[in-house]
């Protein structure tokens, strides 16, 4: 199908994009990044913006930089660049594993990390990894920059803390610093989106868990931290039994009635999948520790 008519503006800088947002604040305006969610929505008539502001060519929003303990990723960096980056693999292993499982090669060549997170599709693969990686999302608006922890970023389905006059410009991730990460996903057989996806970031000291963060997407209407799983594992031993026990708490803080429930999977089935895929993500991470725990 053809989309409804719209006006197109290409922004060359963050400032220009913000000016365009201000100029068209009275119209229904969408920011165009990789276009892999927005354009299908427009072509199927689900979204009919009057104005498209293309931010995909803004140089300042591209690229991956490791500055000391922080990995900084431009919001318009596409998935393929992330999967090919040694810095991402080293400093943000949970995110790296999740990005590898987004869509297919064609999608990964066009889609962007910022587009994924700002769009906040509940079934997207990156919200869980952003939460597990303790990412900070940096947005820029008329009053300058502000930093939003991933924990506070996602409000609900397609809804985030980014204001209508603001732009997500980069994602900052504290280095995993030797920690390991994994993302385990149950893809929809038709769309490939996550029915359930769980990202885990682990740091171990020999047999015991020094730190652990677990985030999930596809389950609730936005990405969520799985605090009870983290609490069950933190400071304890890392083995199959500990992981199984921790995973059984995956849904403790979540209301099954509020879980996503659709043609792909009912909320009850998602609650079950959440436990299984939490266990799988943690097990995959444990297998990457390479320490004595992995030899068990």
């Amino acid at each position, binding site marked *: 199908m053809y989309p409804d008519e719209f006006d197109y503006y290409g922004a060359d800088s963050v400032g220009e994009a913000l000016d365009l947002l201000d100029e068209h604040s009275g119209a229904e305006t969408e920011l165009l990044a990789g276009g892999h969610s927005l354009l299908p929505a427009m072509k*199927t008539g689900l979204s009919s913006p009057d104005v498209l502001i293309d931010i995909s060519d803004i140089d300042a929003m591209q690229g991956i930089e490791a500055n000391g303990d922080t990995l900084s990723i431009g919001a318009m960096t596409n998935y393929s660049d992330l999967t090919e980056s040694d810095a991402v693999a080293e400093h943000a292993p949970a995110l790296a594993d999740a990005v590898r499982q987004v869509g297919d090669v064609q999608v990964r060549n066009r889609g962007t990390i910022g587009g994924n997170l700002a769009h906040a599709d509940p079934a997207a693969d990156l919200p869980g990894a952003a939460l597990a990686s303790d990412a900070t999302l940096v947005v820029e608006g008329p009053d300058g920059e502000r930093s939003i922890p991933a924990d506070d970023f996602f409000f609900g389905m397609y809804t985030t803390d980014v204001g209508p006059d603001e732009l997500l410009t980069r994602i900052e991730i504290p280095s995993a610093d030797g920690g390991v990460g994994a993302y385990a996903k149950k893809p*929809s057989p*038709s*769309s490939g989106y996550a029915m359930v996806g769980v990202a885990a970031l682990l740091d171990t000291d020999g047999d015991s868990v020094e730190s652990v963060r677990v985030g999930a997407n596809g389950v609730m209407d936005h990405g969520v931290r799985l605090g009870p799983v983290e609490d069950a594992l933190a400071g304890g031993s890392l083995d199959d039994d500990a992981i199984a026990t921790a995973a059984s708490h995956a849904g403790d803080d979540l209301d099954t009635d509020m879980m996503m429930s659709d043609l792909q*999977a*009912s909320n009850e*089935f998602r609650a*079950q999948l959440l436990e*299984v895929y939490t266990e799988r993500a943690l097990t995959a991470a444990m297998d990457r520790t390479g320490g004595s725990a992995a030899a068990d």
Partner: protein
Amino acid sequence: MAGQLGAQAGLWESGLVRVHPTGKVTAFCGTAGHGQGHETTYAQIVSDELGIPYDDIEIVEGDTDEIPQGMGTYGSRSAAVGGSALATSSQKVVEKAKKIAAHQLEASEEDMEFENGEFAVAGAPERSMHIQDVAQQSYLAHDIPEEIEPGLEETSFYDPDNFVFPFGTHIAVVEVDPDTGEIEFENYVAVDDVGPQINPKIVEGQVHGGVAQGIGQALYEGAEYDDNAQLVTGSMQDYTVPKAEHIPEMETDSTVTPSPHNPLGVKGVGEAGTIAAPQAVVNAVTDALQPFGVDHIDMPLTSETVWRAVNDGAAADEDGADGEAVADGGEQAEGLRTSEDERSEARPEEAPRNSERRSREQSESSGSEEDSGGED
């Protein structure tokens, strides 16, 4: 035959074989290929019959402006009926060419031998003429028998006197994860008997494609409606057509039992996989779930459907009334492998859709007879 079975139309197919003055051939068939490789298979049939090189043969299908009347492609019938029409027309071409060759070689028609496109006088092989040269002579037409018309082309409306009955056995070996309802293929073996294979590669491809479609039906494809009768699986985002990653590696093999009912002895293959795969896969999954008291499960076997069957089955079991028992059962059965073989009797090739029910009954009874005969 077709009339006795209640078909509203004949089950024939047309084939026109035209040998041009250049010796090249254009063959027209009333079927309509859509990816099955008819152009390849038909050209091989005509090449074999005429002894004219494969590269000199062009196949035309599906153009109502060019072809004679035709019935079309359905029910795995094209090779058996359309191919037989082309073979019959090719044989008529050879008969006519033989008269012209005999005339030109000043021999009697009875003394003519025909092999690999070459007409030769019996006992005097140096007196010979290739059919492509005969074609040129037929159009020059100044030295052909008086009773013969110029030109070299023939048409047949081949009307089979019976259905053909391909048969086969497909075996699916699956592993089911009771915690998630996820199904993994350990092995898939398909052995089909479709008679002589004109092009084994194409036959194998047809089996692969058919099995893929069958697995799609077994595991993924379902048209879902909401309470307002709105189709909610209206896009490829929601309706699962299986992708390459969903289809297992498969082993294929065959036996060869020619059909007595057409000149090529061929039987249909297009639907072999679609017919066998759903039963093989669903029965394998059901077999795997036996420890959970599951003896029936409706397609498509989505992860949730299987997971629910495991839980419901366990709940129905007198020992497994609660969630604890489900989990225990899950552990016992984890990694359980099972296999299920499925005999398939493919739908009769010539069966038209409007007699579908009758033809399927025919398939089951007669197919079984063929089946046991084939194993002898």
